[in-house]
């Protein structure tokens, strides 16, 4: 089957700040969030911009002609050259798992049923499948204070249950406790997800994910993504006095390191068909590497915004 789309997975290696302008509250520089859900995301325009830069700086990977056809060409201003739209269309990067401090296991990769529903919808649109996701959506009906974990989870500890003498699997996220259940359907899905997000040889990252992933209710997830982002106070030093400049204290909000997002890249074949590219370049999506290290958002010079991007293509369900 002809494939005209891929799913990309973004793994934040360092905190990421794609800003939403200046805030009016305690956070001076908030990160961008979805209008209705208030979940953090990365706009498709940012994803496309850094990909254009990636291909422009990797001359061995692509030509100028590829960059212009894949990402668009600005008009030169003359009547005969009106510019061209890019053939690659990139969706917003939506949140898939959000890291939250855990009492056991250091931190957890937290997700929720609504995230999985949106993922399922996007996978269906791209003709991709992810083993186990149907079972979770069909069978799981989470209560407010329960959570599903992988069978190899390192997040659990034993706490006294309501019946005297009994103990239950419990996990502690931020300041909240959840009753945990090792769920086979969730285990199947989380194992396949780990293989898709991380390269085949990166078993350490895969294990980190499966040992720490947890499915909580939508309401709990809402709390974590809105209240547990990374807030960094920043100052600016006066170069002469070596003290803090007047009024130069501000707070920045970051999507924490270890957050994982996903999105879709679609190739408009009607635009790529007009290309003057050589045969080997004709499938624009085939130029995407298996994985790319990109820098997204602000404050690159202080180590922010480094992400690992994996591309799942050709219906690649593992």
């Amino acid at each position: 089957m002809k494939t005209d789309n891929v799913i990309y997975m973004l793994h934040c290696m360092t905190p990421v700040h794609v800003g939403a302008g200046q805030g009016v509250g305690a956070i001076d520089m908030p990160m961008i969030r979805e209008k209705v859900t208030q979940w953090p995301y990365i706009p498709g325009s940012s994803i496309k911009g850094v990909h254009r830069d990636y291909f422009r700086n990797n001359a061995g990977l692509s030509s100028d002609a590829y960059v212009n056809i894949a990402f668009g060409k600005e008009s030169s201003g003359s009547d005969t050259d009106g510019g061209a739209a890019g053939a690659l269309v990139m969706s917003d990067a939506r949140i898939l798992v959000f890291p939250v401090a855990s009492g056991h296991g250091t931190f957890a990769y937290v997700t929720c049923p609504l995230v999985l529903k949106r993922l399922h919808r996007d996978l269906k649109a791209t003709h991709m499948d992810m083993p186990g996701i149907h079972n979770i959506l069909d069978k799981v009906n989470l209560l407010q204070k329960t959570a599903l974990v992988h069978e190899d989870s390192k997040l659990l500890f034993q706490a006294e249950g309501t019946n005297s003498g009994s103990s239950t699997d419990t996990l502690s996220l931020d300041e909240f406790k959840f009753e945990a259940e090792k769920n086979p359907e969730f285990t199947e899905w989380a194992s396949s997800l780990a293989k898709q997000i991380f390269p085949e040889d990166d078993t350490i990252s895969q294990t980190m994910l499966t040992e720490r992933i947890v499915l909580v209710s939508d309401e709990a997830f809402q709390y974590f993504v809105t209240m547990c982002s990374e807030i960094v106070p920043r100052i600016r030093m006066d170069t002469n006095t070596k003290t803090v400049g007047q009024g130069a204290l501000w707070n920045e909000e970051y999507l924490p390191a270890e957050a994982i997002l996903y999105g879709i890249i679609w190739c408009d074949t009607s635009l790529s068909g007009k290309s003057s590219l050589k045969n080997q370049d004709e499938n624009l999506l085939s130029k995407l590497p298996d994985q790319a290290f990109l820098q997204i958002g602000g404050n690159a010079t202080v180590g922010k915004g480094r992400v690992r991007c994996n591309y799942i293509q050709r219906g690649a369900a593992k």
Partner: protein
Amino acid sequence: MEHTIKIQPLDPLMIRDGRPFGKTAGARAHTLDTVTPGVVAGTLRSLLRQEILNKDISVSTNKKGSPVSQITVRGPLYTLGESVYFPMPQDVGFYEPDASDQGAVTFLRRPVEEKEHQDEMGFGFLGTGVTGLHEDKLWPVQMPVELLKPLKSPPAYISADLMIRWLCDELNEEQWSKKVDSWGSTKQSSSFIEAFPKEIRTHTAIDETTYTAKDKQLFSTESLVLPPDLSFIAKFKTPEWLELTKDINQLHSFGGKRRLAHFQELTSTDCSEDIWTCPDAILQAVEKQTVTQQTTYLRMVLATPAFFSKGWIPGWLDEHLESTDKLKLDHQEQCPPLVKLKLRWACVPHWNAVSGWSYGAKKPKAVRRMAPAGSVYFFEVLEGDPVEFVRKFWLQSMSDRDRRLAFFDKEDGYGLATWGIWTPQKSKEDTQ
């Protein structure tokens, strides 16, 4: 062959209005409040154009008047879960609770037939008063006596089940208030959908040499945020020379900034044809009124914005506001009209400014004022068979042809109409 397509947007959508968006610092690209039929029709034709290119059929695909540009598309309607939704009809008004605090106040907007009471009632507005152009033809409408504040966030879309009951003239003010109150507290009821919120994104252009924001290149874009499960439904008919080899099931960009949407063909097992067929309940209601009442009254509620050659008045009405021979479906040119209608009143909110982009001419289309979706036209049936008329004209385009040949409003699905019955309101003196 006819195809019904479900369009599931995957990202917020930008449906551009006609305002310019160029290289000006601080410029903002605005979005309309809803998805216009032209965007749906244009996108579906782009999909078909790709099919033609793949099949290597020798047809001009990107020129004005090409066969592809005249493929008839109907839509969009909306679906959420299993239910179809229509734009909210404007002949019912919702107001903030009054002093008694009994919940939202509902007022049904209905013309009053008894002309002899009009002077006593003090009417003289909305085109039906002493100086109105059509005062001898239109009937006045009864309005709330007290000044009421419109409901802050009224429903914007109504489920097909409730709409059918409304078109059968079955709902009274109390039932409406209950429905709106139960929906308003949680927004979870399946009866309504609220207006789509808009998000604003701020963008900068990055200089590729310095990696800093380019000077004076800060701009913003506005998008519609749709509920996660909301889809659009549209229908089109392919000509004989273009039979699709397989069902449509793919991604395609939709609207401004090329946001992605999933296009999937609905099959007969999805009851796709039921969406476009007039419900039996409405036909029975029309029939019942025809048999039991002396006069039949039909209501036309627009499901999509309509272009009318006389502004808010359809071009198929003459100077007496009576329908002419133009009131017929395009493929029934030879047949006499099924009914003769006379306009008695209309609820038409502020016009929609609708534009578009012409890929053929490579320039924006002219901005035109259209009667918005949800507009309601009240007709009296003077002669003919209203049951057969409603059956045939259900969700058909009632738009007029634009004298400029650049527009294909009927083919694009502008002016799709649902039909129902209404009963003239009694004046207060009669009801006392």
